[in-house]
């Protein structure tokens, strides 16, 4: 059942959308590589570049894409396509899995192409590189899921979605100034430092592990505030 729904959903991407996804991801891959590797003087600089690039990826793929795909879902819900799917022997969970799987197919493709050149050129040992890539994939998918489902509660209002993106940007670009415990809000930085410097402090490790749920909890603060504002809920601007 899920497979059939997945096949319908995957067909919903137009050809030009697929071409755009692949082209943009490939250009991003070149951009990241060019940005990262000219300053190869020191390991520290390289690591800083990698961290910045991953933060870009984190924001663009982890936040903006789920906002778009969630809007797409929201559109389906409003149009009644969900209701149509529910008239088949499909549970709401199966429908969500089928639809998200289709989105993830292109999401993974974009992610993989974005990291393609990076993977080939980064001077890390293969096992470490594999760990980085796996970590990035895991975190990005986690972020995607958190963003996606959190946004459902905002009831598809454009203004809260805009504020959400701003919030994420603040988190990622403000996190480095929150020294010394910025791991708390930026799991990707923790991942890079952990792999690059080999941080073995149990406190840092704990912060790193707590980062994702903490970060999800932080997200709900602007959500609750925005949701309480009638003029936002009513779409009054």
């Amino acid at each position, binding site marked *: 059942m899920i497979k059939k729904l997945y096949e319908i959903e995957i067909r919903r991407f*137009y050809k030009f959308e697929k071409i755009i996804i692949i082209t943009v991801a490939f250009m991003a891959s070149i951009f990241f590589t060019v940005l990262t590797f000219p300053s190869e003087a020191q390991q520290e600089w390289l690591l800083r570049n990698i961290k910045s690039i991953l933060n870009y990826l984190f924001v663009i793929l982890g936040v903006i894409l789920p906002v778009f795909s969630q809007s797409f879902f929201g559109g389906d819900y409003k149009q*009644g396509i969900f209701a*149509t799917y*529910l*008239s*088949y022997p*499909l549970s709401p969970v199966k429908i969500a899995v089928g639809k998200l799987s289709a989105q993830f197919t292109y999401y993974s493709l974009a992610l993989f192409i974005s990291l393609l050149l990076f993977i080939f050129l980064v001077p890390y040992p293969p096992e470490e590189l594999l760990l980085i890539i796996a970590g990035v994939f895991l975190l990005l998918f986690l972020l995607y899921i958190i963003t996606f489902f959190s946004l459902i509660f905002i009831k598809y209002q454009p203004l809260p979605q805009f504020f959400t993106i701003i919030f994420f940007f603040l988190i990622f670009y403000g996190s480095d100034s929150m020294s010394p415990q910025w791991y708390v809000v930026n799991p990707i930085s923790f991942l890079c430092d952990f792999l690059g410097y080999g941080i073995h402090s149990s406190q840092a490790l704990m912060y790193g592990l707590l980062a994702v749920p903490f970060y999800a909890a932080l997200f709900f603060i602007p959500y609750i505030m925005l949701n309480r504002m009638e003029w936002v809920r009513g779409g009054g601007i």
Partner: protein
Amino acid sequence: MRVIVTRDLVKRYGKVVALRGVSINVPKGITALVGENGAGKSTLIKVLTGKLKADGGEFKVLGTSDMREIRKKVGIVHERISLPPEVPVEFFLTKIAEMYGIPGKKVRETIKLCGLERMRNREIGTLSFGYTKRVGIAQAIIHEPELIIADEPFSQLDAKSKINIRSLFYELYKDHGISFFISSHNLYDLEQISQHFIIIHRGKIVKEWEGMRVESILIKSENNEKLKDYLKQQGYNARIVDMYVSVPNRGMKDVMSALLNFEGEIYEVRTASLEQIFKEVAE
């Protein structure tokens, strides 16, 4: 066998009670559900199809109240046909059929039956409203359901599309034995194909009957007042409705024989239309 049975169904939206103890017995065949806006038609359909949960009462569709079973056995035509617009017609129907384990041959038959042959490779979003409705009907019948529940299937359709869809429903009933439970404001269309009628008013069933031909006889005469008094003297429960004298619950033959001795001109004798019955009940 009854295809839908409900007992004292209650549904509330906050303080508003949309269904106030709805009890119906829907037989096999084509059943029309009629009511004003806000009468509770769509709510009743949403409860029967599992889109809403009833606050009270019980129901069975095709002998079961298990929603999974109901979805397997029933086809649903929503008021607003909402299908993924980017997907071609045949591809979409094939995937839906595969969900039910139905072979590709059946998909081609359904496409033909619904008059979608020329549109099979078109994306759903590029179709006209009438053809989109047809795709909506095709996806509801593709798994050979025993019952189709349709909410406003004739709404926003042009005259030709209405006739086509009406004929399609009747054909599906006559040739394929599919029962229909149709909610609509298009009384004329319902009247053409239905055998069983239900009128819902402010969340309550106010009238339910089978076969409208014996429901009410309408007579137009040169003096309706005189005719009404005459029929009352003869023991008929006659009353004036618009330009007619209405005689409910009597057969045509019975009323005709009573009219033979009426001293006055009779212009027209006919069965009441669904619209007239609905109007009488609503008033």
